[in-house]
């Protein structure tokens, strides 16, 4: 057998699987978003009609869609910077030559990343409990009033942000730590010889050296945050007062609760468009800042 034929044969099973179970569904979803595919179509495919962009236009008229968009943006805009700040802070601590027991601390801080999201979300429901939760118990020591975290429309999404930061910061921490370790030591030495203080070194050596990695980390984190679903599903069922309904949650409800698969597909593509748009904007801004 010639190597070139072998190459195709070795790659073929994976490529076929990706084509059948990924590429075809993506195309099908795009087509479906231009139809009125619903529970009647589910029973009999002859009931499907082409409706053009109607699903997309109808979305614009739905208050719940705007609500979901706002909630998702809130989660992205607040959650991503907060999460990366915690990752960077802990990575800097772990990178410090003064830190002891680095292996232990690294494992401890990373542990939430490998836990099961649905399970820890259940744990957090009780940690956030308005009466018996340990969060409010902690607040009481600070002289603060208890917060009905998951029952108050203003606090439910911030509570989910907290859970998500706790669950995910270790991931970027490991990546940023590797980035910090890759910065050549003579850069620091040169800055110290020039008499730069710790703050100046951080701003003029650490951050610029880490910039490409920070961009990549923020792109990945952002795309992850756009896909928020399990936390609201498990903890709040989209409530209270629809303040934790996210775009993906809306897709799930439209598609798998009400079986409006056409409109749910449109929601999925709106999400995709926003993720793509945000990534492009962020990459462009980063390039411009980098060029300066």
């Amino acid at each position, binding site marked *: 057998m010639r190597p070139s034929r*072998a190459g195709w044969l070795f790659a073929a099973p994976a490529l076929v699987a990706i084509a059948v179970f990924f590429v075809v569904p993506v195309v099908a979803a795009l087509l479906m978003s231009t139809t009125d595919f619903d529970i009647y179509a589910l029973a009999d495919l002859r009931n499907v009609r082409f409706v053009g962009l109607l699903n997309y236009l109808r979305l614009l008229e739905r208050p719940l869609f705007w609500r979901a968009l706002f909630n998702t943006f809130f989660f992205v805009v607040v959650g991503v910077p907060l999460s990366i700040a915690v990752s960077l802070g802990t990575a800097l601590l772990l990178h410090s030559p003064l830190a002891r027991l680095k292996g232990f601390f690294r494992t401890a801080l990373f542990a939430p990343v490998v836990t099961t999201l649905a399970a820890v979300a259940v744990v957090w429901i009780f940690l956030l409990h308005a009466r018996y939760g340990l969060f409010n118990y902690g607040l009481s020591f600070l002289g603060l009033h208890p917060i009905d975290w998951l029952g108050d429309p203003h606090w439910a999404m911030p509570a989910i942000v907290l859970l998500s930061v706790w669950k995910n910061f270790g991931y970027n921490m490991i990546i940023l730590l590797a980035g910090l370790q890759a910065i050549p030591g003579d850069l620091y030495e040169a800055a110290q010889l020039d008499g730069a203080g710790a703050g100046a070194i951080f701003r003029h050596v650490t951050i610029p050296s880490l910039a490409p990695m920070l961009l990549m980390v923020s792109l990945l984190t952002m795309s992850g945050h756009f896909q928020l679903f399990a936390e609201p599903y498990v903890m709040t069922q989209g409530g209270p007062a629809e303040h934790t309904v996210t775009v993906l949650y809306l897709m*799930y409800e439209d*598609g798998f609760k009400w079986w409006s698969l056409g409109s749910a597909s449109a929601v999925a593509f709106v999400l995709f468009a926003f993720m793509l748009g945000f990534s492009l904007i962020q990459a462009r801004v980063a390039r411009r800042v980098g060029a300066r």
Partner: protein
Amino acid sequence: MRRPIASLMVNLALLLAALVTLFPLAWMVSASFMAPGEASTYPPPMLPQAPTLANYRLLFAEHGILRQVANSLFISLLATALSLTFNLSAGYAFAKLRFRGRERLFRLLLGALIVPAQVTMLPLFLMLKEMGLVNTYAGALVPWLASVFGIYLVRQYALTVPGEILEAARMDGAGELRIFLSVVLPLLKPIIVTLAVLTFLGCWNDFMWPLIVLTDHAVQTLPVVLAALSREHVQDVELMMAGAVITVLPVLLLFLGLQRYYLRGLLVGSVKG
């Protein structure tokens, strides 16, 4: 700032961060051994007054959760085996075997990473419904067959396999399959472990797809059943904590045992930009 003080501050900050991070997990374990109702008192207790296994017994005896443990284990193991089979051979092909259109195809695959998997879920569900695979293990396994990430991971590692070894084996008259199985695979051992751990943990922890495709209690996985139980048992904190421990503990232990391999995969995966 003098060094001893700076050192103390750095280590105190780390200790504090670690305590805050581990606290929810520690409380989960502690509350799972509390008597029913004990956690719902004020001030909230940190440790069980008289540790009991009652919650675990209830989960296994009354709720038959062993079934879901087995489902999770079975699906995750099978997903791991499938993902290894598909991704190892493809990753090796993209790294070491020349074939027409290879580079362009690989760029196309990486481009597909930008599409979120959730976009595929609605048509995929319909497809599986047509094939009669809803509420079956096979339905849950479909997304785990091959992944762009897995292929990428294996390819990056396989690029380091020296071409001379493969040429020498070919000169000796070994077929391509034979070379792959007995020359290449042993060299790929570290990345095999990495891909296996990543896939197993990813599949075990997965929520949205199993929630969609497994609606029948008998085939559901632990995270899905736990989410359903927590809606029915809003008051039973201790019972739910036992369920959370059963779900989280296996993956946490697996991670602790194979940490090195897991973190390698994370770092390779992160430079894909």
